Structures are given as structure tokens and as C-alpha cells.
């Protein structure tokens, strides 16, 4: 599903990621851990092609970063469900509209959109916030909206950047469970986390990054 081939990306000299190579298959569940500022979000941005490698190439769902036309990038992103570290919720739309957006983008019928969004909000226990604007939600609730938006489009792969940072331990545990269910139905999951206690002993692959370099896989 995702493959890094000797990928380097530099924001400036010394800062960025170096010679990263790894692969995540289409039904895998993998964690990415590492200290603050080590390059985890940078890896994620390389996957959804917000950044393009300076060296090497990234392949997502068979599409390679060194061959893709700019026009085609949206197509790659539609395959990916993304939970951003900083949420990226649209502040002038309510929760329902935020979660519905990826479905409108691919032209799904209004009634089907309604059904799928409400199911998703239910699943994440935020259905009563449907009509609220993001700023009316607590930090953890916003994070769950972001997760709902990533899952609702039934993507081929889910990228989650620190999706439990604002969740209490119970909610965090529930989220992992949910992602495991989704993974069982055949979706790849790649998740960044600091919370080693939460992810250890679950039998999933753990990638570690330090100073922009992958340490062990």
C-alpha cells in the first residue's frame, strides 16, 4: 500500500528526514513512534504528497511520487483517510458538514451522505454535536470529529497523526479498538503515537524514528 524508497526530504540543512525506506502492506496495522521533532509528521506529509521527496520516491496505492502529475494528487488523497495532528477542521462549518465534506467531493448522493455521516458520528459518540461548530467542542471531541472525517469515506489506508493526544485513556483505548476493527475489514492503518503504553503488546508493527532516520522496523 505504502512504500518509501530511500526517501529524503529537507526543510533546511540537517532538518527533515533522511534515507527512509519501509513498506506497509494493504492490510497492515503499523505504529510510528519517536520523540518530538523527529520527523513523524513529515513522513505522513510525504505519504499524502503534501511534500514531495528531495531524493527517492514514495509509492501509495501503486502511484509513485516521481511520476504523478500535480493534477492527479487529489486522486491519491481520496484513497487516504487522514487524521491531522492539528485537526484541520473547517471553523465556519458545523460538525456534520465537516465530516460530510469528503463524501461531497466524490459526488455521493445527499441522503447517502447523511446516513453515512450519522453512522460515523454515532460510532465515535459525538452524534449530539452534529450541529455545533468546531470551536464549541472540547479538544477531545474535535479530535474525534477529525477521526470521523477520516473514516467516513472508507479509505484504503488510514493515516493518523497522534490521534489520541487529547483523548482520555478510555477514549484512546476505544479508538485503537475501532481502528483495529477497520483494519480487520481490510484497511491499512498507519498511526503516529507518543503513548508507548497504549500501543505496546498489541502485536502490531512499530516503526521508530529518531532525528529523521528510521531506527528499527
Amino acid at each position, binding site marked *: 500500500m505504502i512504500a518509501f524508497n530511500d526517501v529524503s526530504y529537507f526543510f533546511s540543512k540537517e532538518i527533515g528526514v533522511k534515507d527512509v525506506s519501509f513498506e506497509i502492506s494493504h492490510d497492515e496495522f503499523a505504529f510510528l513512534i519517536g520523540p518530538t521533532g523527529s520527523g513523524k509528521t513529515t513522513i505522513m506529509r510525504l505519504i499524502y504528497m503534501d511534500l514531495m521527496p528531495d531524493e527517492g520516491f514514495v509509492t501509495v496505492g501503486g502511484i509513485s511520487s516521481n511520476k504523478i502529475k500535480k493534477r492527479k494528487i*487529489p486522486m491519491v*488523497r481520496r484513497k487516504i483517510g487522514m487524521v491531522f495532528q492539528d485537526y*484541520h477542521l*473547517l471553523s465556519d462549518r458545523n460538525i456534520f458538514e465537516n465530516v460530510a465534506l*469528503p463524501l*461531497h*467531493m466524490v*459526488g455521493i448522493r445527499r441522503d447517502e451522505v447523511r446516513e453515512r455521516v450519522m453512522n460515523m458520528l454515532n460510532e465515535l459518540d459525538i452524534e449530539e454535536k452534529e450541529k455545533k461548530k468546531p470551536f464549541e467542542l472540547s479538544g477531545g471531541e474535535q479530535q474525534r470529529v477529525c477521526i470521523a472525517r477520516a473514516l467516513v469515506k472508507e479509505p484504503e489506508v488510514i493515516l493518523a497523526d497522534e490521534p489520541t493526544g487529547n483523548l482520555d485513556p478510555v477514549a484512546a483505548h476505544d479508538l485503537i479498538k475501532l481502528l483495529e476493527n477497520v483494519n480487520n475489514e481490510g484497511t491499512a492503518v498507519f498511526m503516529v503515537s507518543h503513548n508507548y503504553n497504549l500501543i505496546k503488546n498489541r502485536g502490531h508493527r512499530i516503526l521508530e524514528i529518531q532525528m529523521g532516520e528510521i531506527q528499527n522496523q
Partner: protein
Amino acid sequence: MIDKISFLLIEGFRNLWRHKLTASTSIFSVFLTLFLIGILIIVGQNSHYPIEYFRSKYKIEVFFNNDTSDAQEKIIIEKIRELPEVRSVTPITKKDAVRIFKDQFGEDVVKMLGYNPLPGSAVVNINKDSFEQVNLEPLIEEIQSLNGVDIVRYQGRLISRLERFYQMMINLLKISTGMILLVSIVVISNTIKLTIYTCRELIKTLQLLGATKMFIKVPFILEGIFQSIIGASLAFFTIFGLMKVGNHYLPQLVTLRIQLDLYFGIGLLIISVVIGFIGSYRAVSKFL
């Protein structure tokens, strides 16, 4: 596809509301520029009234040689009448001249002298309904060259001044209209740029979620067009109202009547849609 189009259309509308502040600013700008353009158009449409009035006062006096007979004078007058610039010719025969002399000086010149010393003449009025500058020189020369014409008198300097002045006004009008149109496109495009700038987070997010360029652009462009149309309608109705008031009071002041018709409205509408489209397209393309 239809679902997507309807979604984008609705988004365009809702953007108007979401961006109340920017929207009202650009609606206001459109209103202002179209109001100005509208006024200029109306002034332009009516600019012939005053000049026509003045032109109807242009008087070319043609004096015939003293020895031309009334019959000859008639022939010359016919010739003058057929010149393209001439609207009408009023003949003043020798007899009329005697009467005029009597009116002016209170004496009957024929009685005094026993014969009529006054030459026949004619007053030439010119065509007045031209937007072009009228240059009388060639006409005067032509009349002068006719057989039997003695002298031609007219208020040459005054007329040419008036005509130059009028021409300057017309040119100023045209230039102003062009400039205002340009300015309004720039203003709209700037305001939409602002709107988009305000929404750069949103655009970034949409891009990250996999929106195509079109999906992001269309609502903004529609928004710009809607704004323009609203501004144009406001301008139309304001001008319409002003005209109503103006037509009510103006006739007592000067003889200009103001025309405002459907075409004018449709014209403003088309201009506004074009401005809105170009303006917002320019702005969107700058950022995407």
C-alpha cells in the same frame, strides 16, 4: 455529477453568507462602480440635449448680392438646403429685410429712398443631432462659393469653442467609463482575493482532503458572480429611484428628460456578471 454541481452551487450561495463582511465589501464596491458607470451612461445618453440646444442657436446668416433677384435667391437657397449638414434654411427676402429694418429702426427705408437698398438674405440652421464635433468651416466655404452669395456671417469662435468643449466632455466620459470598469474589476478581484486569503486554511484543508482545483474554485467564482449581480441590482434600483425623482423635478429646470430602459438594466447585469467572473477568476487563479 448532478449531486456535485448542486453541492457546489449551494456552497457558492452559502459562501456569500459565510463571508458576510468580505461579501458586503465587494457588493458595495460593485454597487459603487456600477452606479458610477450607470450615471455616466445616462449622462452620455443625454449629453446631446444641451449641445443640440446650443446648436439650434447656431445661426448662419447668408447675405446675397444686391443684384440677385428673388427668383435667383430661391435657387441658391434650394442649393444650400440640399447640403448634408443643413437642417433648414429660412429665406429673408428683400421685402422681409425692409420689415425687419422697420422693426429695428422704426423707419420705412423704401419710403425714405423710394427704392429698397437692402439685400436679401437667409438664415441657415444646421443639423444638431450628431455626437461628433461639428466643424462649420467647410460648410461656410461651400456656401460662400455659391454664385450670388455676398457674405456669410456666423459666430465662428463661439461655436468652435462650444463644439470643442462638448467633444472634450464626450471623450472624458468615455475614458472615465473605461477606467471605472477596469478599476471595478481590480477592486472585485482584490476583494475576492481577500476572501480567499481569509479562507486559506480552508483551502489548504480541502486540498489535503483530496478536493480537485475545480471543486475549490467554483464556489468562489460563483460567490464573486453573485456578489456582482447583487451589487448591480442595487445600482440599478438606486439609479432607477434617482431617475424617478430627477424626472419629477428636472423638467422645471432644464429640458433634459432621462431615459432608462430594460436594455440599460440588462446591460448592467451583463457587465456585472462579466466583472464578477473576471474578478473572481483572476483572484482564485492567483491562489490556486
